[in-house]
């Protein structure tokens, strides 16, 4: 049986109260320019929820008094915002120029082969999301791969299995600890 890995989603009344508090704070910071609070609020949602879900969009639209369609327009314009749930670990293979000339494409191909998903997709078990990143600014360590907040330096295709194994083990360990 394949394990389903899910991020812990704090879908509780307290969570929504916190969101409201943050929205109010942002509204007060931007008197006369309520709309200006939108992108900070979307960041807040994504940071804590893992992605921007439909119910959050509806909620934010109500609170800010901005049409829902407008929020979808903004959220879908910016590639940083994800409108679908992501895996437990997001693997971002840098495709900046320095990484590209140092062979990041081969690293990406190896992840595609190993995980059997294309960039932008999430593995069946919900463990990994694969993404192509714009420059991560660690060009001196090219090619780099970022897994959640951790940056792996000078990655060669042959290291890909180890990276996948490392995080798979980590996920199983924490799943067991929870159970």
């Amino acid at each position, binding site marked *: 049986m394949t394990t389903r890995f899910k991020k812990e989603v704090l879908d509780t009344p307290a969570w929504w109260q916190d969101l409201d508090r943050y929205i109010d704070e942002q509204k007060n910071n931007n008197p006369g320019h309520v709309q200006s609070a939108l992108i900070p609020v*979307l960041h807040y949602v994504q940071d804590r929820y893992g992605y921007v879900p439909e119910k959050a969009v509806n909620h934010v639209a109500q609170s800010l008094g901005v049409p829902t369609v407008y929020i979808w327009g903004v959220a879908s314009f*910016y590639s940083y915002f994800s409108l679908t749930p992501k895996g437990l670990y997001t693997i971002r293979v840098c495709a*900046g*120029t320095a990484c590209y000339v140092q062979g990041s494409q081969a690293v990406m191909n190896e992840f595609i082969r190993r995980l059997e998903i294309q960039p932008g997709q999430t593995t069946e078990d919900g463990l990994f999301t694969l993404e192509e990143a714009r420059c991560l600014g*660690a060009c001196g360590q090219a090619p780099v791969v970022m897994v959640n907040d951790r940056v792996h330096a000078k990655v060669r295709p042959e290291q890909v299995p180890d990276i996948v194994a490392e995080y798979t083990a980590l996920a199983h360990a924490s799943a067991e600890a929870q159970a």
Partner: protein
Amino acid sequence: MSSATQTLEKLVSQASPSVAGEVEKPQVLVGIATCALAAGARDAMDAAKAALNGNDGVTLGQVGCVGCCSVEPLMEVRKPGEPPRLYVNVDAGRAAEIIRRDVMGGQPIPEWQIEAIEGLGTPAKGAATGAQDSEVIDRFTRDWRRLDYFSRQTRICLRNVGRVDPENIDDYLTVGGYAALAKCLGELSPQEVIDIIKAAGLRGRGGAGFPTGLKWQFTHNAPGETKYVVCNADEGDPGAFMDRSTLEGDPHSVVEALAICAYAIGAKRGFVYVRAEYPLAVQRLKLAIQQAEERGLLGDNILGTDHCFHLEIRLGAGAFVCGEETALMASIEGKRGMPRPRPPFPATSGLWGKPTNINNVETLANVPAIILLGADWYSSIGTEKSKGTKVFALAGNVVNTGLIEVPMGATLREVVFDIGGGIPGGRGFKAAQIGGPSGGCLPSQYLDTPTDYESLQAAGAIMGSGGLIVMDDTVCMVDIAKFFLTFTQDESCGKCTPCREGTKRMLEVLQRITAGSGEALDLERLRRLGAVAQRAALCGLGQTAPNPVLSTLRQFPDEYEAHIQEKRCPTAVCEALVHYFIVEDKCIGCGLCKRVCPVHCISGEARQPHVIGDDACVRCGACYERCPVDAIVRQ
């Protein structure tokens, strides 16, 4: 002495810096920045901490990245009365050893120090063109001047990076931080501040090189009570990390500059628009703003004067086009980041229609130094039209990857070979890509081009933000052009047709050429489409998107011809144009290639030379990888 300066002096006298200032007891500094963390700096820090085991006779601290990315993690040991020692490639094991042998045991380990690395630590052979001595610069480099890598640099923007703990405002105060702000508030009128910046000849480091003083003047002159200052830290160029490093290593220099700019133009509110992809920079900037507010260096009545200035951080959300100033402002306003036509320029109608001054991180980081040391000092550095220094992010196929700052006008050769150490693996230099997706590729005949705004433009590249990617002879220029266009095409916001459609059509042509179905007319199509986008696109993104294509087309026409006429990729990069064949004399007939071939296009009897059927070959390279005797050639 003005009351502002007096207030500041009181802050300085009460400061308790983590690492800056005179070395009174042994210090161990670990470079903690995104690049260093990637290389394992956290392990080094943890190991050092464990090895020190709570010894309070030694200070363990963090600094930003001094720029030697190729040999990170870095650890510096400083002891009273001794020259500092910079250790390189410090993993956990080395960190513990350095603490035990050098810090505690008084036995430095020369073989792990930067001096042992050829090209970084060899004795200085003289500084780069126009390098200047000064108190500020000297304070940074005096101990390291003997090192080639640093002696050729002039660090103004990066003056404090590596010398201060970026998370402690007291470090910045100890090295003269906020003195420029106090000077402005206490002794200079807003117009006098603007005059200094004008006289210094500072130009925008974001790429276009517009005179900063003039920009400030326009915003200052614009009518209206409400004005804004914005710092553009949306460093989106792939291959550029100058702004990240500055914000991670010395965030207060930018905060101070913004407060100065706000005073000069009459703004009370400001924003730093920074990439969400830079979590450490955001975190340190947040802390810097908070600490500056606590000390009365931001907020109401700064340093006891009437000047009020509130600074906020706004995170980008992964849209490259938001580096364009009008798109950036749209994003702060909570809209899709799309540019609008100029004029009106932001100086007259910017954020919410109010006069707004936008400067890039590096531009701002220069400001406090200029105010303190004067316009004459600053304008003596650099060339006639390009004053001061430029920070370059040196990456790609170069030995010493990292961050360097050189006087404007230093030649590409000095940057790539003297400081960068040349090309690794004994390969040949092919081109320097400068200016990112808006820039161009300069081949070897341009190595003596001075790096100033005008010379680079004349050579067919642009200064850009400072990303400098060195390419060796294994890089295919058509593929690189396709790489950049894929990027700009994907990042095009879609508002104007020349950019939205033009980049798409150009990309299709390049895809065709690299797939082996290019036509003779394609080159002309690329030139024509490029020219239209350059002239007719709405913003800088579209206007400069054709540059990587047009510059490679101009500098490397033979490579394009080979792809189109001969259906051959000279560097064997473009998969579809690569051919595999078996050298008969070398083949031992083991049959391994035959077994791994997914399309069964390899034939041959056991212990007899094998043959690859080129028509059926899918160019997967499996046989090439598998061959135990390297009998398979790829070209």
